């Protein structure tokens, strides 16, 4: 093909008309859209069932645990309540703040869209870190309140030692969890963000 005119290239390009192929089956578009909507709905349904099961198992596990402990004091109940509800609250808030392509504004100009996606991805990680920090702090408070009751028969030194040990363990778990999460976040989102950053520049 020898040409140095954009008009010739436009002709070649626009001459390829897939409309005939697409119009071959008049219901094709409708079918494919419905198929995609059904596929997406099915995926969401499976995710929701998974979430409900996870919450159900979590609740059952905690209720069983508290039943066997036989809580009698006010702070014991508060601690148990915190342990019971903070993971649920954490999960619900997380599902709402996480990055989802369905929440993107697809009709923005390309440059704005790139910034919009980058901001959403960045916010997703920042908000998760904040949420996770608060979750661990609340959980530490809840567990320590519950242990106030459980350890009431021990002497002061032993109680302080166990409280410090539990707190220290949770702090370590927090840092490990955060590191794993950050690694996964980078692995999942780096190909996207790196490419978008390149395009932005």
């Amino acid at each position, binding site marked *: 093909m020898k040409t140095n005119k954009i008009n010739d290239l*436009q002709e070649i390009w626009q001459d390829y008309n897939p409309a005939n192929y697409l119009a071959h089956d008049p219901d094709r578009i409708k079918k494919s859209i419905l198929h995609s909507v059904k596929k997406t709905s099915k995926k969401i349904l499976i995710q929701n069932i998974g979430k409900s099961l996870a919450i159900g198992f979590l609740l059952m596990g905690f209720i069983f645990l508290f039943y066997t402990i036989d809580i009698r004091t006010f702070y014991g109940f508060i601690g148990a309540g915190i342990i019971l509800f903070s993971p649920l609250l954490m999960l619900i808030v997380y599902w709402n703040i996480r990055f989802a392509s369905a929440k993107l504004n697809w009709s923005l100009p390309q440059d704005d869209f790139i910034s919009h996606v980058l901001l959403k991805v960045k916010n997703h990680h920042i908000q998760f870190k904040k949420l996770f920090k608060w979750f661990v702090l609340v959980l530490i408070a809840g567990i320590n309140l519950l242990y106030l009751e459980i350890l009431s028969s021990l002497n002061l030194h032993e109680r302080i030692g166990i409280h410090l040990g539990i707190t220290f363990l949770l702090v370590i778990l927090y840092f490990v969890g955060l590191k794993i999460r950050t690694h996964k976040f980078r692995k999942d989102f780096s190909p996207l963000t790196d490419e978008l950053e390149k395009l932005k520049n």
Partner: protein
Amino acid sequence: MNVNQKEQRFKELLSENQAMIYRLCYAYLYHKDEVDDLFQEVMLNIWSSLEKFRGDAKISTWIYRIAINTALIYNKKKKKDTLFFKDIAYETYDKHQDDYGEVMEKEENLLALRKAIAKLKKQDRIIITLLLEGLKYEEIAEIIGISLNHTGVKINRVKAKLFKILSKNENQ
């Protein structure tokens, strides 16, 4: 907008713009299945964004934006932007049909153009596709979200690159 109105609007939009959307997907990916998949995803995003269209831009501009943005994210998700043309087979035509030679020439020209486009950077591919669709500089600037002057500079640069690649491929 109820479901029937939405469906009606959607069908109207697609009958007017489906060829352009498909060609845009065609400039991004090379295997037919992939192109079909991206086309479907663009349609799905148009469908889900339809109620948000407020008329502050031309409907074709709005559709181009959705198509381009979907393609941007699609490539990253699928990581399939390094595909090769050797896998593409020519469509089969009846050698005895009257315009067989003409059809084959068109096919070869289109393939040569696609090969050249594939050698451009992502951003350049978007610009050249919009230009090949016959869009005005103002419209391209509005879709990409950069100034008219900047768009003009970019278009000239990309055009020069494309002709250089085409000429190089021709001589090989």
